[in-house]
């Protein structure tokens, strides 16, 4: 009987702090794609309601306690933080995505500035409100960008590209810090 040890996408990498910014890997958490079949919105709403969730509008997150339902596409959302509920097979395609993505937590004042080195989206707090979820590139990579609280981004990239994502954000953190030191 083999002993299968779970490993997170970045393994044992410790959090990185440069200046006021901090980058760390998020722990693996349950993540389920729920893709509603045409005409089954109500059936899904019925499943979500007891959980205190609603199917999110585009670019939005529905949240209740530990559970987040983040919009990820047309008639598609990712349920994060809790195990998937029972969903009738006729209502939605349910696919486990927990292992498909690497989660990065990027936080600190001005984190948006660093991220906007790579992301072609206006991520400033006043333009990218708490409760937003978008699909957007981080440089060449597909990503999901979530804003759950102020001064923090939760980033999801394909698991195999976690190191590239880390490296790129680290670069941005370094240059932002060097710029802040420039006048000194």
């Amino acid at each position, binding site marked *: *009987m*083999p*002993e*299968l*040890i*779970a*490993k*997170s996408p970045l393994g044992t990498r410790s959090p990185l702090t440069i200046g006021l910014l901090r980058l760390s890997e998020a722990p*693996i958490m349950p993540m389920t*794609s729920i*893709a*509603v*079949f*045409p005409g089954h919105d109500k059936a899904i709403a019925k499943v979500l309601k007891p959980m205190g969730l609603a199917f999110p509008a585009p670019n939005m997150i529905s949240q209740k306690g530990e559970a987040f339902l983040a919009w990820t596409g047309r*008639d*598609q959302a990712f349920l994060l933080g809790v195990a998937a509920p029972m969903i009738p*097979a*006729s209502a*939605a*395609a*349910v*696919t*486990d*995505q*927990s*292992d*498909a*993505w690497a989660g990065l937590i990027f936080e600190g004042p001005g984190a948006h500035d660093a991220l*906007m*080195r*790579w*992301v*072609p*989206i*206006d991520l*400033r707090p006043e*333009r990218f409100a708490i409760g937003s979820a978008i699909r957007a590139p981080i*440089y*060449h*990579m597909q990503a999901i960008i979530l804003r759950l609280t102020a001064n923090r981004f939760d980033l999801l990239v*394909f*698991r*195999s*590209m976690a*190191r*590239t994502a880390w490296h*790129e954000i680290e*670069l*941005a953190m*370094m*240059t932002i*810090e*060097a*710029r802040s*030191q*420039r006048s000194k």
Partner: protein
Amino acid sequence: MRIGGKGLIDRTKPVKFLFDGRAYGGYRGDTLASALLANDVRLMGRSFKYHRPRGVLTAGSEEPNALVEIIGTKNQTPNVRATVQEVFEGLNARSQNRWPSLRFDALGINDAVSPFLSAGFYYKTFMWPRAFWERIYEPLIRRAAGLGSLSGRHDEGLYEKAYAFCDLLVIGSGPTGLMAALTAARSGADVILADEEARLGGRVLADDIMVGGKPGSDWVAEVKAELTALPNVRIMTRTTVTGAYDHGTYGALERVGLHLRARANLPRECFWRIVAKRAILASGALERGIAFPMNDRPGIMMAGALRSYLNIYGVAPAKRVTIFANNDSARASARAMIKAGVTVAAIIDSRADAPMEDGTIVHAGAQVTTTRGRLALREITVRKGGEDILIETDCLGVSGGWNPTLHLTCHMNGRPSWCEERAAFVPQPGAVPGLFAAGAANGTFSTHGCLAAGHAAALAALSDLELRPASVMLPEAEDAPYRIAALWAVAGKGRAWLDLGNDVTTKDVALSAQENFSSVEHMKRYTTQGMAPDQGKSSNVAALAVLADATGRSIPETGTTTYRPPFVPVSIAALGAGGRGTGFAPQRFLTSDQASRDRGAPMIEAGLWYRPSYFPKPGEATWRESCDREVMMVRETVGVADVSTLGKIDIQGADAARFLDFVYSNMFSTLPVGRVRYGLMLREDGFVLDDGTTARLGEQRYLMTTTTAAAGLVMRHLDFVHQAFCADWQVRFISVTEAWAQFAVAGPQARVLLNSMLDEPVDLPFMGCAPLRIGGVEGRIFRISFSGEEGYEVAVPTRYGEALFRDLVARAETIGGGPYGMEALNVLRIEKGFITHAEIHGRVTAFDIGMNKMISAKKDCIGKAGALRPGLVGPEREQMVGLRVSGDKGLVAGAHLFTHGDAISRVASQGYVTSVCWSPMLNQWLGLGFLKNGRARHGEKVRLVDHMRDVDLICEVCDPVFHDPNGEKLRA
């Protein structure tokens, strides 16, 4: 020389720098040009073609003459404008395009033979003898041409790119830009104010203008303080907006660290992509010269630049200044010089009705007809009323008028229109949607006019943005009319330069007209007018006027060439920031990556993934030895390979089967649950798109696999087919490539290995699939094979991938097996005649690979109609065959095939080889290839020729399946 009490430089911060190896002193806030002028250095460069001595002409990024190399510790930067480069302690600058030195340049000989180097002379000569062009003429030309030099070393500097967004982008911070930014900012708009210079203020500072009753610099400081305090304003200095692109996107180059000594992690430059809902072009105007004979000597500069050097840098370029102008604006230079204690020898004003000037001689209706001085201006000749006057002077400030800096308005093909009154082109309103040109950039030249225009432009933008304008008081300022009488060129002996950068003279333009290169585009291309580093910023309009004159047309009839991005040259490194090295594309790592590297496997790139090539063992000297061993290991015992890179797509829904029937050429609705089927996917044009196996996991659930290379392509294709043709079907799909780590376990001992780690023995038919519990983890198992041996693929959630790989390999090794890499995988599949994208390379049909029968007759599918075209089937097409040859002479992929006995020529080519390997099992070289009518030619000996690698041999055509043709091992 430095003038006491003037300028905005920080005199408490002296800096030392080098120019051509000599040390000079300057102050923080100086540019290289201002610091050199302060040290009375006037010779700063050599011209492009004639290598004539040149000094600084301007005080801005439009500088055509004073281009230098900046020597860093690790590298050098060519063609840096001395007028833009700020000095810092230790700055090392070097003049360029001269040998052996700036003062004595051997190629100065070109100047002496200039009559033979007229416009386009090179099109008319150097043709004979033919072989001399590449060997003699062209190398000579190339060596003489060019300006600065690259070192040839990698640019290790740090660069970055970034995005920014705003309601309103204000380009330029002179009176117009500051007023616009202030108005918009107070009204709550989200504003970016960008200025090319290190300081805000533009010509308010350069001209030392009074604004609102106080010195301009005070007014600028007040506005700056207010803007800085506002949260909705972002001020970007040292930032040049370089291009206007579609839908409110602007490119901008920020000089982040170029004004400082190199520091760790501080980028040299940043290229910004600014998305603005509206923009105001407040970029001011550029002064232009007058083409009078010998107008290129060091000491001859723009009249406005004299004011910039004096008011910003506290520098007077000379002791005895003369002014030559056709408009009023240059008078300010004379006044400023006098006030600073510099002698103004005379003002030469070409207008007969030129106003007088207190305390200065004004030669009205006069022109400068020639100049003297070898390395610096010494004397000028002025013609007035038929008489020549000699004036001793070491600096001549010239003003031929002002051209609005409207370049950005041309970036979307807009053409400016001619304004006779201003003798200048002015922007076409709306040329760039959302961009308003205002102030001097729009032809308004008084300070009051600019302030008002900035305010008005902001109001227009606010109205578009649906923001209520806050009240802003317009400060008082001068409102003098702009009076000019156009003067483009002065007749006389000697060359009169238009384009100083490319050494284009009025004679060149006249010659181009004489030779019927009379369209403005022809003139530009024939003479190279406007194609130098300054892109004709100070010369294009005059050249156009000279051409108009030579062809007897008006300026509007003659037209204008257009300005293209970038407004100022932008380094490739800044535009390509992030792309260096591995940054060019994301790196994808397998869960087994570290385990493979631990075993010394060289990793190779495949579809952005890194995959192990082979796993060397002690004593193996070449990759072939390792590969052969791995192949035999799979054939004889068991091998383990990470195949997680294959694309995996989870397809669900009541219409999933129907959907697969539509996207695959063969049938999937008939596939039983728990079984796997090979599928062939076509493009709509009938050629093969991809292949792979698809498993039916449930009545309404399939798992499709794609090749590694085509995973993204297939996803896009499926999305298209679904959304375009059957969006209402009950089907949804999502990539699960990254969700599963999947390992091939192949070989006669595969089952033994698996059974050693499973609770229940494996019991799957060939092409079966089932859920699997392994080490307490829910996984999947598929009995499929890409090797021809009994094979399984085991999939577990990715987090367990590394552990499972290490465990599988360890177990395999206990029974004589082990891991195998891409090389062995390739040999195994060639032996079995399985195809990859080496075979299905986009020009191959199902017919070619012998799979025409896989296009089901019972249903429609993507590509079915396309595949029926006559050109896609038939014996004349090259069909896939096997090739083999015994002996140690190897087959090579890429070789062409010929009928034995035929001459080697394109027409005779019968096909080509796509994949080859040495088969350690069959002890011969095997190949897959395509051969005309190949299926009918099994057994024929054909000639294989590879000129690239000197291979010429005879090989045998055969069936492409070399190993286990009946699949007995697969089904074992």
